């Protein structure tokens, strides 16, 4: 692999990783907010884990 | 009958010189994982009372005892022993509230005498002053003849007797006995009854969880029946039950929510 390919791999994984984590975080935040509304709203005895 | 001395923790004067209740709980609850072992108990037990704690398995008897002993921390609600808040100063309650658990907590490779001497040191007895106390306790529970034997060789009944001896070496103001009669022969059960009587005379508050409802009722000033982690019924003198709200309040630590 040439130097440039390593640089691309370096930046790609790190910046890509941050982007993936951001996406994961925002998704988890959305799910958590919905779950909280459900849990806080009318808490069925076995609210989702 | 071997001579038995009962040692008691010094009395704590409450505010304005009044004597604080031995046990005071407000909507006390405890969860294990996501199951509510105790859902909300509001009880006040006066000092010196002997109280029977009855109810089916899983009613929360052991959980209530372990909470009072500060073995576990409350999940919700509040608990005070001799006026000391269990969340703020559990270390002040340790030693005053002594817990006799199903698991007798001995070290198998140590002899009965060594186990008890260790307990005496832990309860604050010095080397010299502790020795007679230990020997007398072993005598009382009828284990003097196996003092030098390793606990590994003991039967369940003998282990329970050694645990009773450990309680005799402590200086409690509150005793929390979890089915003290279990695993004991008839003499052992008689021993337990005699000791409870002695503790009662000495002014120690005794909370006994037991399935021997009739046996406990005959000795106790009051009986508390637990069901599904709640107080189902309170009868007798010296114990009163407080209100329990329909919904528990989230803890302060969690409330400061920023959506």
């Amino acid at each position, binding site marked *: 692999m040439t130097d440039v390919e390593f640089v691309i791999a370096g930046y790609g994984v790190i910046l890509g990783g941050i982007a993936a984590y951001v996406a994961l975080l925002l998704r988890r935040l959305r799910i958590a907010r919905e779950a909280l509304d459900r849990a806080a709203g009318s808490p069925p005895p076995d609210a989702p884990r | 009958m071997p001579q038995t001395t009962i040692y008691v923790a010094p009395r704590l004067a409450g505010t304005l010189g009044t004597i604080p209740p031995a046990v005071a709980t407000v909507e006390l609850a405890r969860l294990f994982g996501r199951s509510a072992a105790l859902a909300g108990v509001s009880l006040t037990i006066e000092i010196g009372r002997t109280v029977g704690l009855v109810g089916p398995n899983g009613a929360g008897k052991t959980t209530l005892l372990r909470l009072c002993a500060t*073995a576990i921390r409350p999940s919700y609600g509040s608990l005070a022993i001799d006026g000391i808040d269990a969340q703020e100063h559990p270390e002040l309650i340790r030693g005053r509230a002594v817990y006799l658990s199903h698991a007798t907590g001995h070290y198998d490779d140590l002899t009965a005498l060594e186990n008890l001497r260790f307990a005496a*040191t832990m309860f604050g007895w010095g080397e010299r002053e502790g020795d007679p106390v230990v020997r007398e306790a072993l005598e009382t529970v009828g284990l003097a003849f196996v003092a030098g034997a390793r606990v590994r060789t003991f039967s369940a009944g003998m282990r329970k007797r050694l645990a009773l001896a450990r309680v005799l070496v402590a200086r409690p103001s509150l005793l929390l006995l979890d089915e003290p009669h279990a695993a004991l022969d008839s003499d052992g059960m008689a021993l337990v009854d005699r000791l409870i009587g002695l503790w009662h005379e000495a002014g120690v508050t005794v909370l006994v969880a037991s399935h021997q409802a009739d046996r406990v009722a005959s000795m106790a000033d009051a009986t508390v029946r637990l069901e599904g982690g709640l107080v189902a019924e309170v009868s007798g003198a010296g114990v009163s039950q407080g209100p329990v709200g329909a919904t528990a309040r989230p803890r302060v630590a969690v409330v400061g929510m920023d959506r």
Partner: protein
Amino acid sequence: MSELRRGLAVAIAIARKDATSELRGRQAAGSTLFFAAIVLLLFGFALGPNAQRLAEAAPGLLWLAIVFGGLLTMARLHQLEAEDGALEQLALYPVDRRAIYAGKALAGAAAMLVLGGLLVPVVAILYTIPLGSAWLPLLAAVVLGAIGFAAVGTAYAGLTVRMRAREVMLPLLMLPIVAPLLLAAVKVTVTALGGDPLGEQGAWLQLLAGFDVIMLVVGAGTYGFLLEE
């Protein structure tokens, strides 16, 4: 002053209790020593038979065997408490949590000292290492290493003894923490056996001592939280 004396009495009582149980426990201490010795034997097969290479690797292998044997030792000393609810009883006694930590750490350090001390001759024999004049720094390394390992081991064994998957959690949590201890101990051993051209042995001993002090202080300070249920 009496508060300190009482804490000392408690710590000594706990250490003595553990020592008695260890000595009488037929299986415990001996089996760990044999385990570590067998590990050293396997290292020999893995790196041997070139004697020169084994001699070079000996310090590293010694301390790896001590670390792995140490993990078993720390787990065992707290397993002693876990049976029959002894740990809960220990936590209920009206004693200062730092005294309990001190007692358990003392017992742990003693057990590690015995393990390390006995493994040195095993290594000397297996990998034909002339101990000769090197015994003083070696002793210092084993003593400081034992204390440091027990200081961390007592806290983490206390933390993991009631946890699920504790067999994997104790090594997983401990090994990264004791990496500098392993590194320093090996360096002291290398310089003790093979000469110290750069005079770096003193620095490594100081690092070990520093590690011990820090871990003992933070261990004692936090052990109470680890006993909580």
